[in-house]
């Protein structure tokens, strides 16, 4: 039997297409719909129409965006308390499973989903959050949607979408010591731009991607949106299956064997073509940090800032505005820039492996600046405590707190003060993202730990040498 070679993306898309409208819009079936406090607009839309939730069993709620990271038993801010209560009421009313504040499975939605085995290869996963691209690490078709679309998925378990173009990013060679998936992601975004993958579904491939752990693949897919992509994905393999096996919501027994058999057929066929192909050499990637107010404004730690005088038109304006906001000067070295505080956590880098690497840098050392470490989920927190990582962080002088989106988005009140410079393992260095006037530098958790130890943005490689 011969058939046209197909991409992972095409196989996922075609398996979910309920119908194709004349104008080119596809109606897709949604296997998992994740909701959080921000979904209140969508539940309100549903209530206005008097509609039920079509598939409560396929809808899962979790408290993350507003979750307090301290004093959870008495939430002081009435707005935050109301946001959390509203989610718990909405999910309760519609018979939706919800991992609330007191649930031991609570965590950031993109950490919790994979951890619980709710995220599986071959699924279509939606959530009203742009970092839903994270789940693509499992060979799922996963993308963020807006409130109107969340209401549509709640009401119908389907979503209208225009088929994106395809793009493959192949990473050859191997990553150097202390260079992580975060560095790889910031590096491609710096090359292609924050809208470089706009309108595309990315498949990450090549020996470097195959060599990444699931945590690394999730970091890579998570940041797809920062390069403008609709979604990012990695073909499922034995690394994927080993991660999923035995998780609470994963299939078991004979169902597991059958599922794995299906999942093995998802990989892109030899000879399948992509609308765009990009290739990167893993060996050329250094630890990477952002200097500006867009993830595309990223540099290897060894490099100097650009000089707006050498740029043209809009690009020069952008660089000048970013340097002005960030309090940096044209052409300066990024290495050695003093920081005020650090943050380790988020859906990008709040998993156990991230904490282990940061702890490897901090072990036996003291942080020169204050900082917050917020594990990606309550289970990550428990695991880290079992491994003694919490003591490494606290002995270094950092604060060890509960899980949530925390200082990545600041909705729970974990904010960076105006003008303060924060080395952060998060995903967005946008103006005001971590608080009004906050200056964010994105980097890997290891690089954040190095910044904590030296009080400056610095190269983690000498600090990690011989430790991992």
């Amino acid at each position, binding site marked *: 039997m011969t058939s046209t070679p197909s991409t992972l993306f095409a196989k996922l898309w075609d398996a979910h297409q309920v*119908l194709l409208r004349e104008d080119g819009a596809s109606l897709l079936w949604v296997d998992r719909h994740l909701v959080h406090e*921000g979904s209140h607009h969508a539940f309100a839309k549903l209530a206005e129409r008097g509609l039920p939730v079509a598939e409560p069993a396929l809808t899962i709620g979790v408290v993350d965006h507003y979750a307090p990271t301290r004093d959870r038993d008495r939430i002081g801010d009435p707005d935050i308390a109301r946001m959390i209560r509203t989610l718990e009421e909405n999910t309760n009313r519609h018979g939706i499973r919800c991992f609330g504040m007191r649930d031991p499975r609570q965590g950031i939605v993109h950490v919790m989903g994979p951890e619980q085995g709710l995220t599986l290869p071959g699924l279509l996963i939606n959530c009203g959050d742009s970092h839903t691209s994270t789940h693509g690490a499992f060979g799922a078709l996963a993308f963020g949607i807006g409130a109107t*679309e969340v209401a549509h998925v709640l009401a119908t378990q389907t979503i209208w979408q225009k088929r994106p173009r395809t793009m493959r990013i192949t990473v050859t060679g191997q990553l150097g010591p202390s260079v992580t998936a975060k560095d790889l992601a910031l590096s491609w975004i710096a090359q292609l731009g924050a809208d470089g993958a706009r309108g595309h579904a990315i498949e990450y491939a090549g020996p470097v991607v195959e060599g990444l752990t699931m945590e690394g693949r999730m970091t890579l897919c998570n940041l797809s949106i920062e390069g403008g992509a609709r979604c990012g994905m990695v073909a499922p393999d034995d690394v994927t299956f080993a991660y999923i096996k035995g998780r609470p919501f994963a299939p078991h027994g004979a169902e597991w064997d059958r599922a794995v058999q299906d999942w093995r057929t998802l990989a892109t066929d030899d000879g399948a073509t992509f609308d765009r192909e990009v290739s990167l050499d893993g060996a050329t990637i250094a630890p990477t940090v952002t200097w500006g107010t867009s993830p595309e404004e990223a540099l290897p730690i060894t490099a100097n800032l650009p000089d707006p005088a050498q740029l043209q038109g809009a690009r020069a304006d952008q660089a000048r505005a970013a340097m002005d906001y960030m309090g940096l000067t044209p052409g300066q070295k990024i290495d050695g820039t003093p920081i005020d505080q650090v943050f380790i956590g988020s859906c990008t880098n709040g998993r156990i492996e991230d904490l282990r690497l940061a702890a490897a840098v901090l072990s036996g050392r003291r942080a020169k600046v204050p900082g917050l470490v917020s594990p990606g989920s309550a289970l990550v927190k428990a695991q880290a405590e079992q491994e003694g990582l919490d003591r490494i962080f606290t002995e270094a002088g950092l604060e060890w707190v509960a899980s949530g989106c925390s200082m990545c988005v600041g909705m729970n009140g974990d904010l960076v003060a105006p003008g303060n410079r924060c080395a952060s393992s998060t995903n967005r260095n946008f103006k005001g993202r971590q608080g009004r006037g906050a200056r964010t530098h994105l980097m890997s958790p290891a690089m954040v730990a190095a910044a904590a130890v030296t009080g400056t943005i610095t190269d983690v490689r000498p600090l990690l040498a011989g430790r991992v």
Partner: protein
Amino acid sequence: MAGFSIIQGPAVALPQDNIDTDQLIPARFMSVPRKDGYGPYLLHDLRFDAGGTPRPEMPLNRHAQARILVTRRNFGSGSSREAAVYALVDFGIKAVLAPSFGDIFASNAVNNGLLPARLPEDRIEAMIARLGDKAEEMTVDLTDGVIRIGNEVIPFDLDPIWRLKLINGWDDIDMTASHGPAIAAFRAARAKAAPYAMLDGMT
């Protein structure tokens, strides 16, 4: 939502790249119910200084009657928060013209009757230069796919699916209601082909 094919009103320029949705509406305003209105929060930290005083140099402060926004690449990138669109719409903005948009933002915009029109970068830069810090009357014609300003007629890009949706004022939930049987048949086939895709409900 009512459909439309003509947008007419004052256009202003906001010559910045990468205006992300965190800038369009800072996270701290997002717990507000929609019925309270999001207009006051639009580009809040750009429009107001730390003490809450409007910045006079900000075009949207000087031209509160603006209906069309001309801006640079990657507008609406970042967070999927639909509140960014609510802020624009509640302020009175009907169309945004830019070289590129964040995908999720553009989709949210169309779902709320806000037009995300794409133009080549050189056209946008010429428009920004023409507008300067003034507001100028502009017409956007969805049927012909052109923008009229002064004597100029400039084509713009819009996905045909979205063009139809805006003109007809289609609502997706209503549209999907007519496909109930197809969805039910799909669900049954999906449960058979991929049992792992289904979950038991709460007991």
